[in-house]
C-alpha cells in the first residue's frame, strides 16, 4: 500500500478539474496555450484510464493487491468516507470517455471552440463529471458528479448560441433539473431506511430490510431508476434528447453521445450490486426489457421519419440506449459481454457520426446552424470568402468527398450492426445468446428481442441509405472543404471501431472478465468495505 500509483483512481477527477480551472485563468488571447493545456490534460486522462484498465484487467501490477481498486478520499474508510472504486467496468468507461473526449476536443479545436466563450474549461468539467460518475462508490457523490457533468453540459449545449439551441436547452435543463430533484428524493429515502449512502454498504444491508422499510427502499430505488432512465433516454422519458442533440454544436453532440450511457452505467452498476438482496424494480427484469424494446421501436421509427441527419443521429442514440436497456433487463451473464461491446461500439460510432454530419452538411450553407451575430462577435469568417483569414480554412484535404462517403458508410454499418465492423460482432453476440435460450428469457421473449435487434437495424439501414443518396448523389452540392484537424478525429474514432472488430477476441476476453466481476457483487462489496487507506 505505498507508492504514488495508489493515488491513480483520483486522477481522472483531479486532472480535468485543475486543467479546467487553469484554462479559465488564462487570457482568451493566448489561444494556443489554452488548447495545448486542454489537449495535454485529456491525453493524460487517457493515459491514466488505460493504466487503470491495465491494472483492473490484471495486466499491470496492482497497488491494491486485487483487481478492484478502492480509493478512500481523505483516508476515511467506507462506509463513513467517500470512496472511488475502479473495477473493470469503471476502467473501461474511463477509457471510452477519454478516447471520445480527446477526439471531440481535437475536432473542436479546428474552429468550434471559438464559437463562444469558455468552451475548453466547460469541456474539461464535463469530462470530470463523467469520470467521477463512473468512479464513485457513493450514492450522493454520484449525484454531485451528475450535477457537475450536467452543469457543464448546459453550458456546452448552448455553446454557439442561437434560437434553436436556447429553446432546446431550456427544455433540456428543465427536464434534468426535475430529474435531479427526483434523484435527491430517492437518495434521501434510501438513506432514511438504510442509514448509509455507500453503494456497497447499501447492498450489504439490503437483505436485512423487511416490511415497510423494504417498500420504502423500493420506492426510493424506483425514483432513482426513473432518473437513470431519463438520462439513458428510455421511452417515454426521451423526448428531450433529439432536439437537444441535433441542435448542439458538432463536437458537443459527439461527446454527448456518451452521456446517455451514464444512465445505463448507473442502472447496470446498482442493478448488479443489489442483485443478492433482491433487485428493485426498474433496475432489471421485465420493466427494463420491455421499456428497452419500446425505446428501440420509437428510436427506429424516429430514424425512418427523420428529415435531417442531426435528428437521425439523435434517434440512433435512442436505439442504442434501447438495445442496452433491453439487454440489461434480461439479467443474464451471457448478454453482458456483448452488451458492453455494443456500448463501446455505438458510443464511438454515434460520436463520429455527429461530427461527420456537420462536415457533410457544411456545403449546404456555411454556418446555417450558427447565428451570423456570433460569427461576427467571435471573428469567424466564411471559408469560401477569399478575403477571410487563411488560418480558418487550413489545408483542404483532397478527395474530401471520398473520405466523407467512406466514413458515412462505415458509420451506417456500425450503427445498424452490419458486418464486418464491431457493431455486427456485438449484435451477433446478443442474438447468439438469445438463440441459445439464455437465462431470463421465455422463447417468445428471445424471438421478440431478435426481431427488435434485426428490425431496428433494417430501419436504420433504410434511413441511412435514403439520406446517403440525398446527400452524396445530388448534383446541387459542392464538395465541402475539410481540415485534417476535423477529418482526423472522425477517422480515428472509426479506426478504433475497426480495431474493436479485428481484435474482438482480446476485447471479449476483457469484457467477459468484466461481466464475471459484475455478476459477483460480493467481490465489489468486500473490496470496498475492507479497503484500507492509502499508506496505512
Amino acid at each position: 500500500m505505498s507508492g504514488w500509483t495508489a493515488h491513480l483512481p483520483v486522477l481522472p477527477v483531479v486532472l480535468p478539474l485543475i486543467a479546467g480551472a487553469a484554462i479559465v485563468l488564462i487570457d482568451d488571447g493566448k489561444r494556443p496555450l489554452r488548447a495545448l493545456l486542454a489537449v495535454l490534460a485529456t491525453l493524460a486522462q487517457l493515459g491514466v484510464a488505460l493504466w487503470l484498465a491495465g491494472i483492473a484487467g490484471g495486466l499491470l501490477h496492482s497497488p491494491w493487491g486485487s483487481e478492484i481498486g478502492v480509493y478512500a478520499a481523505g483516508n476515511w474508510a467506507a462506509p463513513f468516507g467517500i470512496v472511488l472504486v475502479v473495477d473493470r467496468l469503471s476502467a473501461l468507461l474511463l477509457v471510452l470517455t477519454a478516447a471520445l473526449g480527446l477526439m471531440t476536443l481535437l475536432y473542436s479545436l479546428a474552429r468550434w471552440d471559438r464559437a463562444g466563450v469558455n468552451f475548453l474549461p466547460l469541456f474539461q468539467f464535463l469530462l470530470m463529471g463523467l469520470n467521477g460518475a463512473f468512479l464513485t462508490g457513493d450514492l450522493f457523490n454520484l449525484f454531485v458528479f451528475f450535477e457537475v457533468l450536467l452543469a457543464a453540459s448546459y453550458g456546452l449545449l448552448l455553446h454557439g448560441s442561437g434560437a434553436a439551441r436556447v429553446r432546446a436547452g431550456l427544455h433540456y435543463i428543465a427536464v434534468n433539473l426535475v430529474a435531479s430533484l427526483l434523484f435527491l428524493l430517492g437518495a434521501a429515502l434510501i438513506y432514511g431506511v438504510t442509514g448509509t449512502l455507500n453503494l456497497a454498504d447499501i447492498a450489504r444491508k439490503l437483505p436485512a430490510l423487511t416490511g415497510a422499510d423494504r417498500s420504502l427502499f423500493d420506492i426510493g430505488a424506483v425514483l432513482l431508476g426513473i432518473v437513470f432512465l431519463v438520462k439513458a433516454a428510455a421511452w417515454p422519458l426521451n423526448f428531450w434528447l433529439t432536439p437537444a442533440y441535433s441542435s448542439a454544436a458538432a463536437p458537443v453532440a459527439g461527446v454527448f453521445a456518451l452521456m446517455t450511457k451514464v444512465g445505463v452505467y448507473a442502472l447496470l452498476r446498482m442493478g448488479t450490486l443489489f442483485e443478492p438482496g433482491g433487485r428493485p424494480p426498474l433496475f432489471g427484469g421485465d420493466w427494463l426489457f420491455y421499456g428497452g424494446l419500446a425505446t428501440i421501436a420509437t428510436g427506429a421509427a424516429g430514424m425512418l421519419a427523420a428529415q435531417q441527419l442531426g435528428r437521425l443521429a439523435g434517434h440512433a442514440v435512442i436505439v442504442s440506449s434501447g438495445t442496452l436497456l433491453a439487454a440489461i433487463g434480461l439479467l443474464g451473464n451471457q448478454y453482458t459481454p456483448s452488451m458492453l461491446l455494443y456500448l463501446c461500439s455505438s458510443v464511438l460510432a454515434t460520436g463520429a457520426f455527429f461530427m461527420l454530419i456537420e462536415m457533410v452538411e457544411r456545403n449546404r450553407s456555411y454556418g446555417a446552424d450558427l447565428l451570423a451575430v456570433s460569427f461576427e462577435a467571435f471573428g469567424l469568417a466564411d471559408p469560401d470568402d477569399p478575403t477571410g483569414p487563411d488560418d480558418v480554412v487550413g489545408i483542404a484535404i483532397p478527395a474530401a468527398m471520398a473520405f466523407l462517403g467512406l466514413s458515412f458508410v462505415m458509420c451506417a454499418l456500425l450503427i445498424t450492426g452490419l458486418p464486418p465492423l464491431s457493431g455486427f460482432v456485438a449484435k451477433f453476440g446478443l442474438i447468439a445468446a438469445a438463440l441459445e435460450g439464455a437465462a431470463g428469457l421465455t422463447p417468445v421473449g428471445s424471438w421478440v428481442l431478435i426481431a427488435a435487434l434485426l428490425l431496428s437495424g433494417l430501419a436504420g439501414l433504410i434511413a441511412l441509405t435514403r439520406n446517403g443518396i440525398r446527400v452524396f448523389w445530388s448534383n446541387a452540392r459542392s464538395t465541402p472543404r475539410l481540415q485534417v484537424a476535423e477529418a482526423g478525429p472522425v477517422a480515428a474514432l472509426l479506426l478504433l471501431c475497426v480495431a474493436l472488430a479485428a481484435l474482438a477476441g482480446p476485447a471479449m476476453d476483457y469484457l467477459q472478465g468484466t461481466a464475471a466481476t459484475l455478476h459477483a457483487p460480493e467481490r465489489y462489496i468486500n473490496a470496498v468495505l475492507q479497503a484500507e487507506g492509502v499508506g496505512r
Partner: protein
Amino acid sequence: MELVYAMAIGIVTGSGVWLLLRPRTFQVIMGLALLSYAVNLFIFAMGRLNMNQAPVLDPTRVIDVAQYADPVPQALVLTAIVIGFATTALFLVVLLASRGFAGTDHVDGSEGEHR
C-alpha cells in the same frame, strides 16, 4: 410535528408541480424553486425530526446516538441547496436568453395555436 411537516412538504410540492406544468417560463422556474425547497425539507426529515439535539459531538452530553441529531442529512441539504441555487441561476439566464430570441415567454418559444 411530523404531520405539520409532512403537510408543508406536500403543499409546497403540489404548488411546485402545478407551476412546473404551466406554459410560462417564469412559472416553470418558480415551480422548480418550490420543488427544490420541498425536496430539501424532505432530505432533512430523513434524518428523523427531533429538537434541541446537537449534530456534532458535545463533551457535556452522554455519548449515545439517541442524544444527537443525524448530521449527514444536514450536510446533504447544504450541498443540495448550493447545487440547486447554481442551476436555478443558470436556468434563469437561459430563460432570459430564450425570451430575447423568441420574443415570448412561452416555454416552446412560440405561443402555439391554442392560446
